[in-house]
């Protein structure tokens, strides 16, 4: 059994029925993503693929052909519609709680902010990039960036609860497993590396960010995101958990930090929520911000070429077509090494490491 979500001042407190609703959404997702999803593979192997071969005279070549073939299958349709609906119901069940918790959260925010050990710097003039405004990523109403009221922090409160539910608690009680995976891999690969200044890009509610405060106690930890309401929440959450982090509202493509000002830049499943040009810009920005000898380390979902089975690769694309994680499908074909090289990292200083969950970790070291 997974651990319960950790409780702290900024954690929303659902009523009995709200909790029951949230837990049911979680239960539906688990069932769909295990039993029902494995059934889609049987349907493909036994029904859809044989019919496809008969009609086209050849086997499916890639994940895109599987998607086109599966899209008219009744089992897959109901699976997709159910997973989509459960995602919508999940956010709705969380918003029920956040709506009545907002006054309390805003009061707590003020108290924590007034005695802060870290900091929060917002930029009301920041232009929110098109990949956030075009559609609400993973169907979270209002995205990460929309203030629905003054001094809003609803997006962060909604996201923090949603992240735990989406992962069915597998990201840990603080939903910070990715921070542990990345920092753990950095320490395993570079035991002598001791960064003094760290930047986490696309931090949202700061779950992974806080890991670096403990993993590198000598370091000053900074974090950026484009969304003000997620940053207000992240700041208050870090404060109540007693972790010193400097949060700033900025686009990871073009931040206001000085050249050569960080030893380590990390991101945790940020890439797939950006866009084609943005990805190139983010890597160039990492190169600009890193001190000579510094490192960028980015974790994201498996690339198409990392999947042993083409059907598994097709399943990873579900989020792109059904959950507004649109860029996934393009990103999963990109060559990270080439992208990093274009951004100025030397080929010999770029590597793709595999982390325990089998996801790719892009490491780029700036020439000393």
């Amino acid at each position, binding site marked *: 059994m997974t651990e319960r979500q950790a409780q702290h001042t900024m954690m929303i407190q659902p009523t009995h029925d709200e909790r029951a609703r949230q837990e049911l959404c979680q239960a539906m997702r688990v069932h769909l993503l295990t039993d029902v999803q494995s059934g889609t593979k049987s349907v493909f192997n036994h029904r859809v693929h044989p019919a496809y071969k008969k009609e086209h005279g050849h086997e499916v070549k890639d994940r895109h052909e599987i998607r086109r073939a599966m899209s008219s299958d009744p089992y897959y349709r109901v699976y997709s519609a159910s997973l989509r609906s459960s995602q*919508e119901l999940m956010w709705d069940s969380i918003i029920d709680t956040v709506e009545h918790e*907002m*006054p309390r959260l805003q009061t707590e925010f003020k108290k924590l902010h007034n005695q802060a050990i870290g900091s929060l710097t917002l930029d009301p003039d920041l232009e929110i990039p098109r990949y956030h405004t075009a559609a609400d990523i993973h169907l979270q109403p209002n995205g990460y960036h929309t203030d629905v009221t003054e001094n809003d922090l609803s997006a962060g409160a909604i996201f923090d609860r949603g992240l735990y539910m989406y992962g069915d608690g597998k990201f840990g009680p603080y939903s910070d497993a990715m921070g542990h995976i990345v920092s753990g891999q950095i320490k395993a690969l570079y035991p002598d590396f001791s960064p003094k200044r760290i930047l986490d890009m696309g931090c949202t509610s700061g779950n992974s960010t806080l890991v670096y405060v403990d993993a590198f106690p000598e370091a000053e930890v900074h974090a950026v995101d484009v969304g003000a309401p997620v940053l207000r929440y992240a700041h208050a959450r870090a404060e109540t958990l007693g972790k010193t982090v400097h949060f700033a509202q900025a686009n990871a493509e073009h931040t206001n930090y000085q050249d050569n000002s960080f030893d380590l830049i990390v991101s945790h499943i940020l890439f797939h929520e950006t*866009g084609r040009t943005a990805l190139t810009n983010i890597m160039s920005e990492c190169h600009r911000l890193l001190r000579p000898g510094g490192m960028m380390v980015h974790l994201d979902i498996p690339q198409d070429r990392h999947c042993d089975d083409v059907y598994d690769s097709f399943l990873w694309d579900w989020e792109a077509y059904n959950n507004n994680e649109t860029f996934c499908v393009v990103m999963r074909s990109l060559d990270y090494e080439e992208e990093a090289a274009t951004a100025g990292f030397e080929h010999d200083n770029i590597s793709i490491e595999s982390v325990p969950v089998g996801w790719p970790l892009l490491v780029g070291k700036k020439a000393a």
Partner: protein
Amino acid sequence: MADADRIEIPRSAKGKRPQYFDDPASDKLHFMIMALVEELSVTRDRVDALERVLERKSVSTMAEVDHFEPTEEDEAQRTQRRAAYVAKIMKCFADEAAQVERKDPALDFEKVVEAISE
């Protein structure tokens, strides 16, 4: 909970919802079933919680529940709860109406990719 303090958060995610079935009405019926599944589970959890609370307090209640007479205030609260319940089950209509009102462009997936990849 003080309703005056309650901040309303818009519930409809931006971006056109895929159509999964040949008849769009089926998409709505399917969503309503999913929401009913959720609400039935909530109700069962609530009855379960009630039974456990009453049992812990050693209250015998079967007859009381069978002959329960709501007061006017009880009735008003129950009516309000039922209205919220129905609105939740029919949320798919509110979503479509919001999309129509907002004039969310009927972008197909390829066009969205193109738009964010400029």
